[in-house]
């Protein structure tokens, strides 16, 4: 069995209120990816369409996109695991290619979140939790992650100031990423300035500045067999390791509240499959839907010991020049988080880094990169390790 590679990546700009339909939005990521891969639609054997369906008015978007992209009559189908949908799509594409069933598979992630209000969107996101036993209490995503933040603070002495540093880093890179929805700087002082929206409480202890930016966007990844990748692509990036896990949807069914078990388990699987350790990772994209989520990812992925994630950000080791650069494209916090597009966008960032095509965001001397993508409140976890 040969290797499986990535020969094309693309994404739309992540924006507020995309002025078009979902097929037009998804086409933007697809077009950039096709131009990057230098292939035609006839080369693609199958397409996997990924999003969180509760935002879509269109039922079963796969068929609609396949037609709009000119990918009929090839097979197309839909994959969903909330915010990790397109990483799960890449996992599936890997297995389709590895099995020999297909040679080239397009994984398209998208989300148009702006068709509904922010409160409606919070209500729908809250329904990604247990609608029978938790949603009737008025839950929402920030409050769940806030519970993890509170537990992390209580056990390890992590502070709101430590979390603010993660947002400051994200904004540093959001400013230089032309695809990012939030391109303004965020300073540490804004978190204590009552005049700044960043300081407004959302769900204690998390503030507005701790929360990612909602956005509309799309992403696309072309997954290829070793033979095709070598024929079609000058700089293929190889999928070295994959990990995926799930846990109890209801908080009452969980044991760990200072980290995400799915991140740990998916990470362990991916490291084992790739035959590498956390020390071998040169650049990483982690799922920073909230600042605390990035802090927990440092620890769950083994970049820091449990409770020591704060030291990593305080010493700026996760900046571009540090020992383990994390989210140097602005992350979900500043680049934006169009649910179904996020995993593909994270993979795109790492592929561009490994090719040396990340422009101002480029990290030097890279061999191996890691993508950590979480669905729901640590309900689903995907880790993908990529190498040159």
């Amino acid at each position, binding site marked *: 069995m040969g290797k499986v590679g990535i020969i094309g990546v693309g994404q739309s700009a992540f924006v507020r209120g995309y002025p078009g339909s979902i097929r037009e939005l998804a086409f933007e990521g697809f077009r950039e990816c096709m131009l990057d891969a230098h292939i035609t639609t006839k080369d693609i054997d199958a397409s996997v369409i990924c999003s969180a369906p509760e935002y879509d008015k269109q039922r079963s978007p796969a068929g609609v996109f396949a037609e709009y992209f000119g990918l009929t009559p090839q097979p197309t189908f839909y994959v969903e695991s909330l915010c990790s949908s397109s990483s799960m799509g890449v996992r599936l594409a890997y297995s389709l290619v590895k099995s020999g069933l297909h040679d080239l598979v397009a994984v398209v992630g998208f989300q148009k979140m702006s068709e509904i*209000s922010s*409160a*409606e969107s*919070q*209500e729908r996101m*809250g*329904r990604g939790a*247990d*609608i*029978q*036993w*938790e*949603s*009737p*209490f*008025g*839950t*929402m995503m*920030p*409050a*769940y992650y*806030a*519970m*993890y*933040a*509170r*537990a992390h603070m*209580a056990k390890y002495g992590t502070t709101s100031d430590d979390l603010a540093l993660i947002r400051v880093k994200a904004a540093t890179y959001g400013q230089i990423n032309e695809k990012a929805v939030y391109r303004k700087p965020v300073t540490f002082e804004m978190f204590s300035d009552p005049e700044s929206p960043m300081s*407004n*409480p*959302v*769900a*204690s*202890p*998390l503030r507005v500045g701790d929360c990612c930016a909602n956005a509309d966007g799309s992403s696309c990844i072309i997954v290829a067999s070793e033979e095709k990748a070598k024929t079609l692509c000058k700089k293929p990036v190889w999928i070295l390791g994959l990990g995926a896990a799930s846990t109890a949807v*209801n*908080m*009452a*069914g*969980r044991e760990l*509240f200072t980290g995400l078990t799915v991140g740990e388990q998916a990470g362990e699987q991916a490291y084992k499959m790739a035959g590498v350790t956390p020390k071998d990772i040169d650049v990483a994209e982690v799922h920073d839907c909230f600042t605390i989520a990035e802090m927990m990812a440092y620890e769950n992925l083994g970049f820091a010991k449990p409770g020591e994630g704060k030291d990593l950000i305080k010493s700026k080791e996760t900046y571009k020049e540090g020992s383990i650069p994390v989210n140097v494209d602005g992350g979900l916090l500043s680049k934006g988080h169009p649910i179904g597009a996020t995993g593909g966008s994270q993979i795109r960032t790492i592929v561009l880094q490994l090719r040396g095509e990340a422009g101002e965001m480029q990290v030097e001397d890279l061999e191996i990169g890691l993508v950590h993508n979480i669905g729901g409140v640590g309900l689903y976890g995907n880790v993908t390790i990529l190498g040159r």
Partner: protein
Amino acid sequence: MGKKKKEIDDRFKKFGTVTFTSITKINDFIDKLEQGKVMGTRCKECGHVFFPPRADCYECLKSDMEWFEVTGKGKLVSYSKLEFAPVGFGDDLPYAIALLDYGDYKVFGRIADNVPENEIEVGMEMETVANTLPNGQLNYVFQKA
């Protein structure tokens, strides 16, 4: 003479400020809640204890459950006070969601409105109490033990 309309047991629609589901096999939970009792289920076959209650046991694949009451003190695992709410919950603001650990099981719910935030601390002991909401719906809340 038309067919007699089948009666639907939708008692669960009374659970929470806003409910998202109404038909479940453990609807007796609502009757117990109306009597002031918060109940979980225990599998009669293998003894596995479940909260929230459920109709089916994944350990032994049987569906023969008995009710047990959530009593005594649990430890506060974590909480968060919300300043924004999803659609339908705005009138409840501000409120705090939380998790209590009873050892054999955990309970997710809200902290009672009369507990000031400066008196809430992770690790403190609390009790689970049945509660009627201003809109007549039912839930349960955590009080200081």
